[in-house]
């Protein structure tokens, strides 16, 4: 946008140019920050997902082990009391 010389010193034009400059800068910084936060968020979500899957597997293992030990236990008690 080329501001003609006769307007360059005009108070309203100066003010508009200044405001627009600040607003553009703010949006530029905002966009940069948002891009970084989105990337971080993606990374975090990926790790959260991995952790949930990992815990789900460990929990299935633990439950299967408890079942196995409880049954062994039950059988052994039968032998002892039988």
């Amino acid at each position, binding site marked *: *946008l080329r501001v003609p010389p006769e307007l360059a010193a005009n108070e309203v034009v100066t003010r508009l140019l200044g405001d*627009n400059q600040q607003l*553009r800068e703010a*949006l*530029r910084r*905002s*966009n940069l920050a*948002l*891009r970084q*936060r*989105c990337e971080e*968020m*993606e990374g975090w*979500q990926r790790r*959260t*997902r991995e952790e*949930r899957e990992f*815990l*789900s597997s460990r*929990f299935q293992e633990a*439950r299967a082990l*408890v*079942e196995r030990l*409880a*049954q062994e*236990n*039950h059988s052994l008690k039968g032998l002892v009391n039988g």
Partner: protein
Amino acid sequence: PTASETVHQLLDENQRYLSQLTSLLQDATQEMEHSVMDQDWSWTQYRAVKAQPQKL
């Protein structure tokens, strides 16, 4: 690039990142809906194991 092109680009980009953030948080919230806290955890209790050793 004219100032107006730059403004247009800035607005587009801003809209795109905000949409991305919104969508990321929607996914996260959806995944949270099926909480592991709602599962049956009685099998971690000794009394449940004693009561029914075959089927927890």
